[in-house]
């Protein structure tokens, strides 16, 4: 019964989304208040229907309803409860439903928390969101229905890919999807503005919180994905320049550009056309990202669900959304007026530079990602583009970006002089110079040295920016505190996010110095790595809920003092005939000690074990920095200015979190 209810709710949501896409648009063009008022009601209705539908699917998974094909194919009785729930979005059908549900929640959020918007704009924004949602829900209903039944129902499910049985996967896809889908709201704002033919400072102010919120989630999602591959895949790496990873990085880059260019629209009414294009582009890349994952068009380790037939539907949907919006842009953009003047050396000038560099990086990543499939499609050549390519192209572009990042927040608007800015940054420059010298002696290659120096520069200049605004150490602390309280939170948010970038880059530079060894040892044997002595003291079997494991005990000592005991293991899942490697990681926040258990060799009387030992300096900083960036974004969302116009509704954007 429940799956049918879910299916019905999904179909109902699809119908409501179709109505939501059409009626408010007619209402907005005819200035018909009643039709426009339908928009929020339909958006909320669609949200409730989809949440119901998703809850039904989760219910089916929890209650082991194997007559539902999706549950039978991806779940099993023996699976722990947490993974029964997370398994719902670990497969194609469920993840499309999750996507649609998040999109409907975005629509509901605009309906509920966008009451201060002009009603025509709100109606159009909700209509655009409804159109996209209707497409995805139709896709879900026709080509990948998660509620399809199977007869006769099997006694037990086939179980999930053991790699996905991990707490990291419980939260990674929903957060990443919220980021992806969140950019639908700026996109809808852009389309609505194009239909209206008007972009002004108010538009910039409305669109920015949504863009920042989506950006926070996407940042978190990418950081979590990177962390997941670091500790689950057990290769000791954190970013593989895999097409699917790139598919999340590309919208992040344009989204970051959008967050910055929207500031210029809001403050100076310049860069309007460009910002609209960025909003369209970011969501288009998000959509393409899903398309790349779901259709399996790119050969990737992430392609769990490969089904080209579905690709055709998604391709059509993409062509409609992206092509349609770009066509509208081409028709309407010339009518948008260009805004205020500014000198090259000014806040706007640096924000433009930020946009140019971010988009250049994005273009490079896009080229590297799309080149192999195009080559194989057009010329039948099979090639691949990997880490060396992306390192050689993105880092030289990222370094000037980081250098300018230090100046940006200190520049006055409109027209600036370099000298006063430089004078305020002198100590940051000194610290950077010291870092450069230290790094030159510590590291061999030029790129990590430059990355370290620029990262230190970004962090120091963010601190300098705040210190300058607070007149720290030039006034009594009490007065600085007063200043801190009156300073907008967006300023702190920006500085925090910038410092987060610096921390991420420091982590990456540290990881370039990582050391690893692969050894084959007897129990009791010791090996040295990075000044530590690693001893395999024990290997014994253990039982898990739906697997059997071989657990090793490795003691890591530094100068004879025990640092930690690692327990890496290998799990064998009987139902899938699959083994997974469970990495053991010990972190002290300055470095990770990372051990992997490999194969067993030799006879049972005197076996040897292959171990892979890693010493990863500053590794945790990469994810910590990502988290700090997202926190910075959240802090600037809590700014008073975001709430202005809706003073009684304090939580403007937090609704996205609820889910």
């Amino acid at each position, binding site marked *: 019964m429940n799956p049918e209810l879910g299916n019905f709710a999904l179909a109902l949501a699809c119908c409501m989304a179709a109505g939501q896409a059409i009626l408010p648009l007619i209402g907005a063009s005819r200035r018909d208040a009643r039709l426009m008022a339908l928009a929020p009601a339909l958006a909320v209705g669609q949200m409730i229907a989809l949440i119901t539908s998703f809850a039904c699917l989760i219910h089916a998974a929890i209650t082991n309803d194997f007559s539902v094909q999706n549950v039978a194919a991806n779940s099993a009785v023996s699976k722990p409860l947490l993974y029964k729930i997370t398994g719902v979005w670990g497969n194609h059908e469920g993840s499309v439903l999750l996507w649609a549900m998040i999109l409907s929640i975005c629509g509901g959020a605009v309906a509920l928390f966008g009451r201060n918007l002009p009603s025509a704009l709100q109606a159009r924004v909700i209509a655009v969101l409804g159109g996209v949602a209707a497409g995805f829900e139709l896709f879900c209903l026709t080509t990948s229905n998660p509620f399809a039944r199977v007869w006769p129902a099997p006694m037990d499910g086939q179980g999930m890919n053991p790699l996905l049985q991990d707490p990291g996967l419980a939260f990674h896809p929903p957060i990443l999807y919220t980021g992806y889908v969140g950019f639908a709201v700026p996109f809808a704002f852009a389309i609505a503005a194009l239909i209206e033919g008007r972009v002004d400072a108010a538009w910039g102010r409305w669109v920015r919180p949504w863009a920042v919120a989506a950006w926070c989630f996407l940042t978190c999602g990418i950081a979590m994905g990177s962390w997941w591959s670091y500790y689950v895949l057990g290769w000791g790496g954190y970013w593989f320049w895999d097409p699917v990873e790139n598919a999340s990085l590309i919208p992040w880059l344009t989204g970051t550009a959008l967050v910055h260019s929207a500031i210029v629209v809001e403050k100076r009414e310049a860069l309007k056309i460009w910002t609209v294009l960025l909003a369209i582009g970011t969501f288009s890349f998000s959509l393409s990202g899903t398309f790349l994952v779901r259709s399996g068009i790119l050969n990737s380790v992430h392609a769990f669900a490969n089904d080209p037939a579905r690709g055709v539907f998604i391709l059509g949907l993409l062509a409609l959304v992206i092509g349609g919006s770009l066509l509208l842009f081409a028709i309407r953009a010339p009518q948008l007026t260009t805004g205020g003047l500014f000198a090259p050396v000014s806040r706007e000038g640096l924000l433009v530079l930020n946009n140019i560099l971010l988009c250049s990086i994005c273009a490079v990543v896009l080229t590297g990602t799309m080149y192999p499939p195009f080559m194989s499609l057009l010329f039948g050549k099979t090639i691949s583009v990997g880490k060396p390519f992306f390192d*050689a192209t993105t880092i030289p572009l990222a370094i000037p970006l980081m250098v300018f990042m230090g100046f940006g927040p200190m520049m006055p608007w409109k027209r600036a002089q370099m000298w006063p800015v430089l004078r305020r940054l002198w100590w940051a420059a000194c610290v950077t110079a010291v870092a450069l010298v230290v790094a030159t002696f510590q590291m061999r290659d030029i790129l990590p040295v430059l990355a370290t120096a620029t990262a230190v520069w970004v962090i120091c200049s963010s601190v300098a920016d705040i210190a300058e605004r607070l007149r720290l150490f030039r006034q009594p602390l009490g007065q600085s505190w007063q200043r801190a309280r009156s300073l907008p939170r967006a300023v702190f948010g920006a500085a925090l996010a910038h410092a987060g970038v610096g921390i991420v880059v420091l982590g990456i530079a540290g990881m370039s110095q990582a050391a690893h060894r692969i050894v084959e040892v007897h129990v009791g044997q010791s090996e040295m790595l990075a000044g530590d002595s690693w001893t395999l003291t024990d290997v014994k079997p253990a039982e898990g809920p739906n697997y059997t494991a071989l657990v090793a005990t490795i003691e890591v000592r530094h100068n004879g003092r025990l640092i930690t005991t690692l327990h890496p293991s290998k799990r064998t899942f009987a139902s899938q005939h699959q083994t997974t490697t469970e990495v053991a990681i010990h972190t002290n926040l300055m470095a990770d000690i990372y051990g992997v258990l*490999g194969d067993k060799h030799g006879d049972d009387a005197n076996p040897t074990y292959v171990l892979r030992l890693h010493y990863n300096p500053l590794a945790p900083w990469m994810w910590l920095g990502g988290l700090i960036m997202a926190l910075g974004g959240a802090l600037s969302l809590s700014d008073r200015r975001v709430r202005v116009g809706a003073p009684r509704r304090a939580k403007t954007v937090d609704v996205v979190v609820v889910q």
Partner: protein
Amino acid sequence: MTRKSRRLWLVVACMIGLGSAAALTLNAFSSNIVFFMAPSQVHSKPPPADRTIRLGGMVVAGSVHQEKVKDAPVAIFDVTDGQAAVTVRYEGILPDLFREGQSVVAVGTVNPDGTFRASEVLAKHDETYMPKEVAEELRRSGKWDPRFGKAPDAASWNTMTAADNAKKPATQTP
């Protein structure tokens, strides 16, 4: 600052940004692209020793064994496309999904003696999955056509290669 000169600044900045991106891309493409090769291609046209390639095919059943070189374990196995086999040496832990008789992609360089030094071995997450390149190579060599049913299973792979090698001893690896 007039509108015109401001626009000039913008255009110049854009040109520099995108120009350097394009230059970096082209430069990286010339040295960092990795080509896929099947074992028979490696035999007929061995790539230069410093060129990284991706070698793909099926792991010959019964060919996997271990060696110990200076305390580090080295996995040695043969990869075949049904026409020729190449011996791969890999210092590291083979991925969890690595199986004899299943598809694999190894990234590395060809040694002067014809063996392959892998820096990375990839087996796919899904155990029924066959890399696109491997499937394509099988189709080209006439071992399997996706239009005529499922891919041959692991066991038949083994015999298929053995039969081929018996017919064509020249292609057997040294």
